[in-house]
């Protein structure tokens, strides 16, 4: 089945959307995954960094401990990079006839969705970690018993779970018919022939 029978009448918006190459969607998804994650991480780092520098003037002892806020923000960017790398390994070349097959379209949309989820989740995560880091640096400067030691669970493990684990579940599993991973039909026929031998 081709995309045009899926969407029906050639002059509708649905038809236009379906005719966008799934490579476009995948590429946008991968780009958003890494780009917006890094935006979130950078935003968070500047929020926490400006407060940290100012507070460290009167209380230099806080710098080494509060670097952990910056590290957590950075980790958010790394998640975005990891997912982008994973997503781009899912891209394979596909013969022109199968480009608009429903399986290809689904794979393209899946990569797009994964990328968007990761990107925007990391944006918000980076922001939140940055704001918490700023407050934590300022309160640590006043009173060192106020430094939060248990942020590791909140700021590292949960973002890891959501921003990497959730897109993982959206990705098409490799065993089932993912046309991106399907061989050329000519080669498959040959292999089928070889099995019979």
């Amino acid at each position, binding site marked *: 089945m081709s995309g045009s029978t899926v969407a029906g009448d050639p002059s509708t918006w649905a038809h236009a959307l379906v005719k966008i190459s799934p490579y476009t969607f995948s590429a946008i998804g991968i780009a958003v995954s890494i780009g917006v994650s890094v935006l979130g991480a950078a*935003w968070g780092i*500047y*929020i926490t960094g*400006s*407060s*940290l*520098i*100012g*507070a460290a*003037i*009167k*209380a230099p002892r806080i710098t080494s401990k509060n670097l952990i806020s910056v590290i957590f923000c950075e980790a958010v960017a790394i998640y975005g990079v990891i997912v982008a790398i994973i997503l781009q390994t899912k891209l394979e070349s596909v013969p022109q006839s199968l480009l608009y097959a429903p399986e290809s379209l689904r794979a393209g949309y899946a990569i797009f969705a994964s990328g968007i989820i990761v990107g925007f989740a990391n944006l918000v995560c980076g*922001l939140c970690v940055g*704001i918490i880091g*700023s*407050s934590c*640096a*300022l309160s640590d*400067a*006043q009173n060192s018993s106020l430094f939060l030691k248990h942020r590791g669970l909140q700021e590292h493990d949960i973002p890891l779970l959501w921003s990497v684990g959730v897109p993982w579940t959206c990705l098409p599993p490799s065993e089932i018919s993912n046309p991106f991973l399907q061989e050329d039909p000519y080669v498959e026929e040959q292999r089928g022939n070889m099995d019979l031998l």
Partner: protein
Amino acid sequence: MYGFEALTFNIHGGYLEAIVRGHRSTLLTASDYNNLCQCETLDDIKMHLSATEYGPYLQNEPSPLHTTTIVEKCTLKLVDEYKHMLCQATEPLSTFLEYITYGHMIDNVVLIVTGTLHERDVQELLEKCHPLGMFDSIASLAVAQNMSELYRLVLVDTPLAPYFSQCITSEDLDDMNIEIMRNTLYKAYLEDFYRFCQKLGGATAEIMSDLLSFEADRRAVNITINSIGTELTRDDRRKLYSNFGLLYPYGHEELAVCEDIDQVRAVMEKYPPYQSLFSKISYGESQLLDKAFYEEEVKRLCLAFEQQFHYAVFFAYMRLREQEIRNLMWISECVAQNQKSRVHDSVIFIF
């Protein structure tokens, strides 16, 4: 957008907010005040203060010390910190920081004009001015004979110019008019500051409107109490009250007709935040009212530090430092005059 300031405040204000919070952590604590209250001489005070942040400012003073020297050096420290922050600030924080000093400017102007009226030397008056409120042409205030000259010659170039539109008369300056001028200027300044904070919006507007309302109400009460028994008419008194605050407008109507302190107390007790204040003072006493107002002010200023990402921390810090300098002055005076028993009458602990 209220609630989302955390996203963008730190671009321009993050560093300075962290610095002002660092300064706040160096305010003298109750244990410092206890040590200071037990000092016998001014040199003991200097020794105790040298262990705090005031050390570098006091260490080069030769003994015998005077109380005015101690206060001057401590004020110098505040001025240095303020100037450092003002240099680093961008708009709108720099305008906000400048607004904080206009009150001192008004006080300086009134000081010089009054001093000139009483035939004092200009140089001597300039030394008594508060350093935060200095501006370039302040010395030429001594030349003016009446208010319109004052405005035309000197004040039109200062930031106080817009506040003068309400009080330019051609009358000659005398004590009564000068006080009225001071209060009219201060009223215009408070209203302007209030409008500016409302324009800034967000947490700054909310916290500053609370602090400025308290200031406006406090001034209204002080004006009422100080003008009981003088020839200030009710309408004139009414005109000196600011147009915002908890007491506006009904409380002002009632305060304008008060003739003694008990009537003032009756008016204020209708407002819950001030009722608790007035309940601490027994009937007929007004000396403790000042202290009660200062304590309430300090409490509200400390609460301003509880929230992050707004400008009111700068205002609160400046006011708390000024309160600390007042405390130090009181302690030094008590020690210098050997009245140690009265030391705790007027010292307000900040933390």
